């Protein structure tokens, strides 16, 4: 490489350096009263500035190397991809992969420390379950639900109610396993009540209505003090326990038993949803997502099927809410803010909409990243000895950036569903629209 080429490369890195400065300012300290320049002067402190620029320049160099990859590398990647997808398309390979993943999930809590065990349950497990449920709404039916966490809150508060943890006393105290039925029913009814009028609306309106609903539930939880105990929350929710045939088992507050409980539920739910996707109902959802007018011409009532997806998603969310409440034993409204609705959506989009294990992978990857940054904040990474220059309070900034990059280079997510990947591929070639979450809904009938 000669000097001019090098200079050219260097020049291309300039925007990334500018991006680094911007990042430094965005991740800098908060301002102080009476010192208007404090925040920016601290943000541009050489150490911090250098770290930020280092992050963006490294990303920039990787992006340039990737863009300038030689044709040979390009070809071999394409070849590898088609070969691996052909390999993976074989049924026995697919089941082998699932079995290996399950085996890994079973041994996982025994090979990690206490901190990661907690992360596995509270952060990854619960959110994986939520993501699997939202995937039915977003991935299968193509509806954008921004108030998904409201149903999770409903499930959690139902659990609190029936274990006697709320100021209002229930007629009878129930075991958590029975509460699951009540919570699923309550969340489903809430989903039907919200969905029946709003699912007649087109995509963006639905998003706004659900966003509003999510806010309403949070505000109710804060302000309905006499029922929910307000922002002080509900302490003392009993844990899952099992008393049949003289066998008594209490899940208590420990991590590993809850992990396995979650794992069993998650596997059962995933198998059920997989069957659902490959059934008449799943195909009807695909049809509606692709072309609502043609779907109607095939005798599919769109509102009914959308409502079905919405209710199934809501019930899964309510189900996860009970597990969360029983595990943590304490809930308060701050666990149910709109941020969590967005987070679950991010997990689904990142992992791959409409795919079976995509949402699980999304939950694992992003929640792991959160927990990792939280754990190593300010401390050097063991083994390497360098501090990671990412701080927990800026974490959503980085996740947002990753999501933008994903949307450009891999809009179908890490592990996409085959149908979804095809749809996106076709839409990029101008064949067909996407769905309620994306491209405009079917053009008027000719």
């Amino acid at each position: 490489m000669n000097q001019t080429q090098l200079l050219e490369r260097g020049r291309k890195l300039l925007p990334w350096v500018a991006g680094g400065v911007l990042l430094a300012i965005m991740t800098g300290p908060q301002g102080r009263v009476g010192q208007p320049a404090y925040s920016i002067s601290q943000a541009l402190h050489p150490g911090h500035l250098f770290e930020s620029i280092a992050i963006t320049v490294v990303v920039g160099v990787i992006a340039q190397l990737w863009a300038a990859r030689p044709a040979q590398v390009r070809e071999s990647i394409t070849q590898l991809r088609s070969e691996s997808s052909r390999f993976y398309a074989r049924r026995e390979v697919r089941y082998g992969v699932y079995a290996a993943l399950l085996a890994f999930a079973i041994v996982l809590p025994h090979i990690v420390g206490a901190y990661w065990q907690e992360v596995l349950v509270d952060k990854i497990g619960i959110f994986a379950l939520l993501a699997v449920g939202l995937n039915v709404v977003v991935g299968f039916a193509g509806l954008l639900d921004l108030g998904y966490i409201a149903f999770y809150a409903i499930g959690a508060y139902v659990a609190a109610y029936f274990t006697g943890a709320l100021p209002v006393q229930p007629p009878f105290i129930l075991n958590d396993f029975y509460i699951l039925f009540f919570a699923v029913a309550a969340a489903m009814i809430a989903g039907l009540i919200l969905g029946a009028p709003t699912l007649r609306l087109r995509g963006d309106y639905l998003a706004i209505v659900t966003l509003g609903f999510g806010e309403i539930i949070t505000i109710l939880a804060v302000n309905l003090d006499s029922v929910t105990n307000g922002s002080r929350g509900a302490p003392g929710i009993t844990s899952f326990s099992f008393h049949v045939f003289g066998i008594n088992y209490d899940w208590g507050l420990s991590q590993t038993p809850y992990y396995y409980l979650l794992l069993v539920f998650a596997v059962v739910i995933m198998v059920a949803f997989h069957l659902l996707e490959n059934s008449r109902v799943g195909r009807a959802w695909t049809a509606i997502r692709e072309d609502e007018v043609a779907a109607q011409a095939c005798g599919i009532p769109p509102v009914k099927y959308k409502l079905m997806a919405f209710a199934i998603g809501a019930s899964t969310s309510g189900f996860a809410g009970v597990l969360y409440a029983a595990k943590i034993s304490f809930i308060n409204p701050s666990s149910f803010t709109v941020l969590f609705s967005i987070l679950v959506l991010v997990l689904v989009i990142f992992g791959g909409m409409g795919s079976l294990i995509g949402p699980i992978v999304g939950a694992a990857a992003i929640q792991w990243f959160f927990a990792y940054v939280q754990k190593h904040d300010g401390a050097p990474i063991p083994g390497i000895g360098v501090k990671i220059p990412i701080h927990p309070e800026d974490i959503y900034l980085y996740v947002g950036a990753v999501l933008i990059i994903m949307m450009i280079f891999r809009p179908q997510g890490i592990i996409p569903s085959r149908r979804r990947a095809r749809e996106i591929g076709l839409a990029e070639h101008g064949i067909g629209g996407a769905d309620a979450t994306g491209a405009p809904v079917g053009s008027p009938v000719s």
Partner: protein
Amino acid sequence: MSEQPRVLVDVSHVTLRFGGVTSLDDVSLQQHAGEILSVIGPNGAGKTSLFNCLTGVYVPQEGAITFTAPSGATRSLLGGKPHDITQLGIARTFQNIRLFNALTAFENVKIGVEAHQRTGPVGAMLRLPRTRREERDGDKRSFELLDFVGLRARANELSASLPYGAQRRLEIARALGTDPQLLLLDEPAAGTNPAEKRDLEQLIRRINADMGVTVLLIEHDMRLVMSVTDRVVVLNFGRVIAEGAPADVQRNPAVVEAYLGAPGEGGDGDAAAG
């Protein structure tokens, strides 16, 4: 046929307006069970509007449309949702093909076949016996229909990757999957080549004769219209201007005028002569 044929669809005095534009003006026509009826007319004559009134997409301001099921029960089609009308036994294809592009040919047909099945989410998640039986029946019927339109060999190809003529036939197979009494074909020959047109002609005949499905056809290709249809209705500016056997309609002066313009009207007469 000595006795009066049974009326399947009765359109009487239908008027459809969009603001100041009258798209259908007092249109009346009857379709008998078992016949192939063509609706022809120049662009903008209201043919597709008529289809959309039949399938519940538009609701006309005046008039009535009724559909008589084989059981003898008569129902109004006005105000019915498109999916209800499909369930009643009226299937359609679209002028600009509307297949589910990311699905295979087989899956497209299967979605049509599943119109009358009853599996719900619970049955699907638990794989109940009925679900399994319906899946099996659906697979079988879908393959039969793909065979019928000659696409069995391409069952697992993406519908978007099929050639144009095959997409037309696939759309017809999907519509037939819903087990219709009446099939509405909206310009099925548009954009197809002569060989595909001949196949289509055969296909329409077989749908009518072998499957016993009544066909209502909108078409510009006069050769196809004249060769397959029993009766022709001509629309112009939203009005029925002629009706009758293909050969009679062809000689009707009002029809010739609608298509070619009145003689002596500018240079049109010369063009018609040439």
